[in-house]
């Protein structure tokens, strides 16, 4: 299976490819066969008990720390004139180096139809940075809206658990449609239409320059996510996520799945922002014994935290060859 092709296919909204039986190795088939019937509910419960609570574990803590640190740096750089990270999430200067959010830069280039050198420098820097760090890592490790949305998701899941509300999923191709629509709107109207409603830009500017009316829109969005559709913006709308997912396709930082350790109880899929990338954890769905999670993954590490049997782990592709 071609990682790049499969990743892009999933990013743009297709279902993950189901493995052909002939494609699966004998080893993988043996793993599926050998585990059949040997796992009782009790043994799974024991494994989970031993793993302990998954609330706010290692990667979760690190990730929140990262989001808060990045946005705090934006804030103090302006408020206390520290000048470490000036600007906002859309474009900034980190100790003097130009940084430009790829999607914001794309919107500006499409609307303005000129390319300015500083923007090229900023875009290249950010492209290389997220290429090395994992692409959609931006979403879960830097985006300030992600953190708010995570809290909304927490409420949403609590309400769903109590059967007070129901989650309404949209088709995942909706996000690709949005990406195309916003790109076309920028080209045709000559205005960066997406920025008007982008909660990433709005929240980031609110943190640095103080909140304004636009935060009401962000509030509406969060309420929509709490009461109607889980993580709707990140899952079905945000073109920033699409842009970084494409970058992440070529990134060496990935989560890798090990079928041998997996007990298929599905905790990882329940907590994942983009659960389709974890379809391979369903019994019989993996293509290989050790398979990389596709690039729609935000590398948030929640599945790594939650897996009681260590079958999901971070890896840096090619690093083992160097060491």
């Amino acid at each position, binding site marked *: 299976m071609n990682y790049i092709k499969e990743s892009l296919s999933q990013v743009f909204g297709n279902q993950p490819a189901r493995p052909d039986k002939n494609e699966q190795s004998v080893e993988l088939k043996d793993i599926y066969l050998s585990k059949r019937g040997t796992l009782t509910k009790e043994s799974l419960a024991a494994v989970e008990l031993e793993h302990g609570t998954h609330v706010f574990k290692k990667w979760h803590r690190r990730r929140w720390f990262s989001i808060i640190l990045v946005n705090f740096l934006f804030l103090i750089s302006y408020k206390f004139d520290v000048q470490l990270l000036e*600007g906002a999430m859309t474009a900034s200067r980190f100790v003097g180096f130009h940084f430009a959010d790829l999607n914001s830069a794309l919107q500006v280039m499409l609307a303005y139809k000129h390319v300015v050198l500083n923007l090229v420098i900023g875009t290249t820097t950010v492209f290389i940075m997220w290429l090395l760090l994992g692409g959609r890592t931006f979403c879960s490790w830097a985006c300030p809206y992600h953190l708010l949305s995570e809290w909304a998701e927490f409420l949403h899941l609590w309400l769903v658990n109590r059967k007070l509300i129901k989650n309404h999923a949209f088709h995942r191709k909706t996000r690709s449609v949005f990406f195309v629509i916003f790109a076309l709107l920028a080209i045709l*109207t*000559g205005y960066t239409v997406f920025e008007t409603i982008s909660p990433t830009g709005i929240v980031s500017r609110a943190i*640095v320059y103080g909140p304004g009316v636009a935060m009401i829109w962000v509030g509406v969005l969060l309420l929509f996510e709490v009461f109607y559709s889980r993580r709707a913006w990140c899952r079905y709308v945000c073109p920033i996520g699409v842009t970084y997912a494409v970058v992440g396709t070529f990134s060496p930082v990935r989560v890798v799945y090990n079928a041998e350790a997996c007990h298929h109880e599905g905790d990882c899929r329940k907590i994942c922002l983009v659960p389709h990338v974890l379809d391979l954890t369903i019994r019989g769905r993996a293509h290989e014994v050790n398979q990389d999670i596709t690039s729609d993954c935000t590398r948030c590490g929640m599945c790594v935290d939650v897996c009681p049997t260590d079958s999901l782990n971070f890896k840096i592709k090619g690093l083992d060859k160097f060491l």
Partner: protein
Amino acid sequence: MTDTSKETTKKPKRVLSKSKRESNRREFIRSAVFTAGVVTLSLAGFIPILQGASARLRPPGALKNLLDEQDFFSSCIKCGQCVQVCPVNAIKLAELDEGVGIGIPYIEAREQACDFSCDGLQCVLACPTGALTHNLDYPADARMGFARIDKPKSCLAVQGKGVKGIARGADYKGLLRYDEIDRWNPIPVADHPYDIELCDLCVRQCPIEIRITQCVEKEKELEQAKSSGKLARVAEQFGNECPPKHAIEMQQIDNGDGVLRMVPAVLDGCVGCGVCEMICPVEGDPAIVVDIDKVTEWA
């Protein structure tokens, strides 16, 4: 194989159950409505543009063509780096009520004008996208707008009045740089009382006029240095270039009543920075305002 074979069937198209098809249909409709809704909301951002409410005083170098600010809107990446470098905090970012103009910098001259006290046009240098074009090197190159005497009757000079005390009241938050007090740091206007026989604050505080005066003095010094045989330091000869044209001057008017009256006259060198509008000591609406739909021709 066991039940896994059901999921790994070779058939390219799986037959969906009726309920699955129904839920897919609902999901499709839901997604279409959702998409239409979000796109409509984003398009609502054009309302302020269509109403023409979006034209405002912009920082120096803003890409715009009189009332058409589309290039400026599209090229700005809405990051606020210009806001961060301004020593007098003149630049603000537009709110959601400006629609697609959200996050775009503007200046409210009456509250705090751009007095060029950074000398080097820091906002232009900070701009990562060229929305504030790098085509200008000195304050005199800026074309933000053009000042106009809006209410000549309320102008203190026209009435033959002077200014004694604080120009804009003790509560006024605005800052200006007064070279004679602190060359490097702007101070609150409220900390700088005036005592002037006949009001000329719009001319006195005009950054272009201040610079011209400095240039004239520097030239005299250079002449003296030359004649006395001393060589002037190179640094003193360059820097914030001397504006080629005057921006504003006081002209005498005669009402035949023997009272000395003057009226400010805006000249070709005006860059529209808004300091005259800011400092005008008239209570309420200023006598002089900056129009953004008129600028001096580029030299």
